[in-house]
């Protein structure tokens, strides 16, 4: 909220009073006794004769608020401070004011949550209304004359603020919200400069909400945003309001932890310091932090984040608004994985000596050794695996390097040995994440969005709440935190639906906007082609893919997957790793190390000493996602890039630079020296990857594919993500994530 704007609004009527009517007020400044405030109605009428609208300068809506008219006939006109605005029917007074460019102070109102109307901060004056009205809960009516800066409105806000501050502790100097606190800002702008409160303040016992959210419940102003978030968005009935009157407090009904994968968002929506981040507590002040707008890589959603750093340290991660992907929420894994960036880091190139111990060497020596070994093996014995956190540039460089060495055995982990990379529709979320909101029936095949992509799950939940959409789920028993029908555990059920024998088929076929989501965990199955063609049969029968609606989706698991398949990281032969002599692991920690033959030379390039380093012969330290600029494509085909927030650690280098340098030492110089040049190379392979912040939908649908003749096996689908909190090398190094998985995962 623009504080300067608020302050100027609060100041304006006062200055008018001083100048025109009673200049002596300058000398005798009392707090409350202004003649206007004593008799607000009459003076308001005097001070504000409705000026002709032509005189008013055009105003810009607050925070770029857009007006969307679902039906042009329903437009009504209201007057905000005499300025006419056209808004659709059903908007509240507060929204009308935002469209008119007037920011109304509020605590309980949040545009993505239901309306509570209990903080009373948004009081405005409406003509012919006897009392000030709470604008967030009042629907705007045609011809309504709303006044936001009259003495009545101002006095009302001042009074509300005085009541809110009555029981609010004066501990801003030790409060973590200090500096980004709505109550602090608004009391500066709208509050009185002194209070009349002399009694003791009430105090509330703090609640234990788990390892992520710290509570100081005395600071709570009972806006109930967190309660509404938990029940509406996160879908857990953990938080609630207990007691009434001054005994009112927020709490878990019984002593329990908040077990939502979105619980960190209550930290952001809390307007005061009642709910703050536990790992961030007392670590830094928000004005010391440098924000870098970046992308999350811990899952395939690509949530927009801001990395807040102080000096060389990442201090916290907060969400950034992106309506298409994560709205304004992020998952706990995204928010709290950052302490993993400081632990278990690889900071020097190392070579394993003859005695089996690692020795720190210079880049020069490490590159020379690797280049020499790479030339000694046969081209088809060279294998490269890109990890789940790799950016598009480094995967492009790795593929080019291996191709120049004569090998084409390169893939990205998690995509299986025989991925379908020919048609983008075969591995992308074709409906798009925002498009899921239109759906009315979901069929989840072997995917648990709650742990695989928490933001997609939040979107599905939103749809289920808004449209009463039905959800059918095939896979192992799980809790998706919305109502769903558990249809079965394996391909058996899928076949039944495909043969129209299952009752869910009619639900799917009768739906206006049916959506099928297939989990990327199925890529690893032997019979994946058959499963996918079965799903396509269902899609065809139930008219899931139509010219105006594509409801056939694949939900990917890792940040690197979509870009890897776009770049064509497809292995030539399925079992190349068993016969490999030279394995290049680019951050691949979930590769099956037992499959690599004992005499193979393994190069590990990555940022964390996680799993694969123990098998490596040479270690190249690389930059983590917070330290480099890299393109990532999310599961719906939305290309975005990370930006470096902090410098790299030790002697580490960016991933693509390592491969570029290695190629030169090996005598097959790759033709790009800069990020721009390598992006130009990517443009020739997959132009959609360099169209940043843009979703490129797949053009052809999967119907062009030949039918598979594989035999379907009836083994049930498995859990793909065992532990939501620890899925990659960064989160596995994080202490906070370890704590979470110990306390919060269901046993």
């Amino acid at each position, binding site marked *: 909220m623009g504080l300067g704007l608020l302050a100027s609004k609060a100041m304006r009527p006062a200055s008018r009073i001083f100048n025109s009517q009673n200049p002596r007020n300058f000398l005798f400044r009392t707090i409350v006794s202004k003649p206007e405030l004593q008799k607000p109605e009459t003076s308001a009428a005097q001070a504000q004769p409705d000026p002709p609208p032509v005189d008013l300068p055009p105003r810009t809506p607050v925070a770029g608020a857009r007006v969307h008219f679902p039906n042009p006939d329903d437009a009504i006109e209201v007057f905000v401070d005499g300025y006419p605005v056209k808004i659709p029917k059903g908007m509240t007074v507060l929204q009308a004011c935002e469209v008119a460019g007037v920011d109304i102070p509020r605590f309980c109102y949040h545009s993505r949550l239901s309306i509570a109307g209990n903080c009373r901060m948004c009081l405005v004056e409406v003509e012919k209304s006897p009392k000030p009205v709470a604008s967030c809960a009042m629907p705007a009516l045609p011809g309504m004359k709303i006044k936001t800066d009259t003495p009545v409105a101002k006095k009302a806000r001042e009074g509300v603020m005085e009541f809110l501050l009555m029981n609010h502790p004066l501990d801003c100097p030790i409060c973590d919200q200090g500096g980004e606190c709505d109550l602090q800002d608004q009391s500066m702008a709208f509050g009185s400069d002194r209070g009349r409160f002399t009694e003791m303040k009430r105090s509330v016992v703090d609640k234990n909400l788990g390892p992520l959210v710290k509570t100081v419940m005395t600071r709570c102003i009972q806006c109930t945003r967190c309660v509404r978030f938990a029940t509406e968005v996160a879908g857990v009935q953990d938080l609630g309001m207990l007691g009434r009157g001054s005994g009112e407090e927020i709490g878990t009904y019984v002593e329990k932890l908040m077990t939502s994968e979105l619980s960190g968002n209550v930290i952001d929506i809390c307007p005061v310091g009642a709910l703050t981040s536990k790992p961030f507590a007392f670590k830094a002040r928000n004005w010391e932090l440098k924000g870098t707008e970046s992308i999350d890589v811990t899952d395939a959603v690509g949530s927009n984040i801001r990395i807040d750093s102080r000096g060389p340290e990442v201090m916290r991660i907060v969400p950034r608004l992106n309506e298409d992907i994560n709205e304004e929420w992020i998952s706990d894994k995204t928010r709290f994985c950052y302490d993993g960036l400081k632990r278990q880091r690889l900071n020097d190139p190392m070579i394993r000596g003859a005695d089996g111990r690692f020795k720190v060497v*210079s*880049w*020069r020596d490490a590159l020379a050794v690797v280049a020499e070994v790479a030339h000694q093996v046969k081209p088809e014995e060279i294998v490269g695996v890109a990890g789940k956190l790799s950016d598009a540039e480094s995967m492009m460089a790795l593929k080019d390097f291996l191709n120049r060495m004569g090998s084409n055995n390169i893939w990205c982990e998690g995509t299986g040995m025989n991925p379908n990379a020919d048609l983008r529709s075969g591995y992308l979320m074709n409906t798009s994440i925002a498009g899921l909101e239109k759906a009315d029936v979901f069929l989840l095949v072997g995917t648990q969005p709650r742990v695989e992509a928490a933001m997609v799950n939040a979107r599905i939940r939103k749809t289920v709440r808004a449209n009463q959409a039905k959800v059918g789920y095939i896979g192992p028993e799980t809790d998706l935190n919305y109502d769903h029908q558990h249809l079965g555990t394996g391909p058996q059920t899928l076949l039944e639906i495909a043969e129209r024998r299952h009752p869910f088929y009619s639900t799917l076929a009768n739906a206006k906007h049916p959506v099928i989501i297939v989990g990327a965990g199925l890529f690893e199955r032997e019979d994946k082609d058959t499963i996918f063609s079965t799903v396509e049969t269902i899609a065809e029968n139930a008219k899931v893919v139509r010219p105006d609606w594509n409801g056939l989706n694949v939900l990917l698991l890792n940040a690197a997957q979509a870009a890897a398949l776009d770049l064509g990281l497809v292995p030539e032969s399925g079992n190349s790793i068993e016969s490999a002599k030279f394995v290049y692991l680019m951050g691949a920690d979930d590769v099956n190390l037992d499959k690599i033959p004992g005499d193979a030379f393994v190069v590990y390039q990555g940022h964390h000493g996680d799993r694969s380093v123990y098998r490596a012969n040479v270690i190249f330290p690389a*930059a983590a996602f917070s330290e480099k600029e890299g393109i990532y494509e999310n599961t719906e085909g939305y290309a975005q890039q990370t930006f470096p927030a902090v*410098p*790299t650690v030790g002697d*580490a*280098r*960016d991933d693509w*630079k390592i491969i*570029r*340098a290695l190629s*030169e*030492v090996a005598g097959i*110089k790759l033709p790009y*020296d800069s990020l721009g040049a390598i992006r130009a190379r990517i443009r020739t392979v997959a132009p959609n990857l360099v169209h940043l912040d843009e979703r490129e939908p797949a053009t052809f649908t999967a119907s062009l594919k030949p039918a598979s003749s594989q035999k379907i096996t009836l083994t049930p689908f498995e859990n793909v993500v065992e532990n939501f909190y620890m899925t990659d090398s960064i989160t596995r190094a994080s202490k906070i994530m370890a704590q979470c998985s110990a306390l919060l995962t269901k046993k």
Partner: protein
Amino acid sequence: MSFTLRSVKVPPNSVNLEEARHRVFDFFRSACRSLPTVMEIYNLHDVATISQLRSAIATQFRKNSSVTNPKVIDMLLFKGMEELNNVVEHAKQRHHIIGQYVVGRQGLVQDLDTKDQGISNFLKNFYNSNYF
């Protein structure tokens, strides 16, 4: 750095190698004598000892041991005195001293290895740092 210019007087040219050599030894002694002060003002007690710094200085001298032209020696002497003066006057910061004389002795010596000939600028930069 006006104080530097003020206090580093340009000595008259050495007439022969013998005089230049004499001056070099004088300068070495004065540098060594300033070391306790340097340790104190830069707070180096926990990272280096006086003898380490002394050998670091000696290395700098030996690096140019092959120079026999008195004029060149005078020039090097002047640069050395300037450097010493900057150090003693606290014109540097702690990390300068640590970086140049305590840890990165090889960082001062320009790496003119024959291995690097014929490699691209990219690789040369790559060996130096990640940021280029």
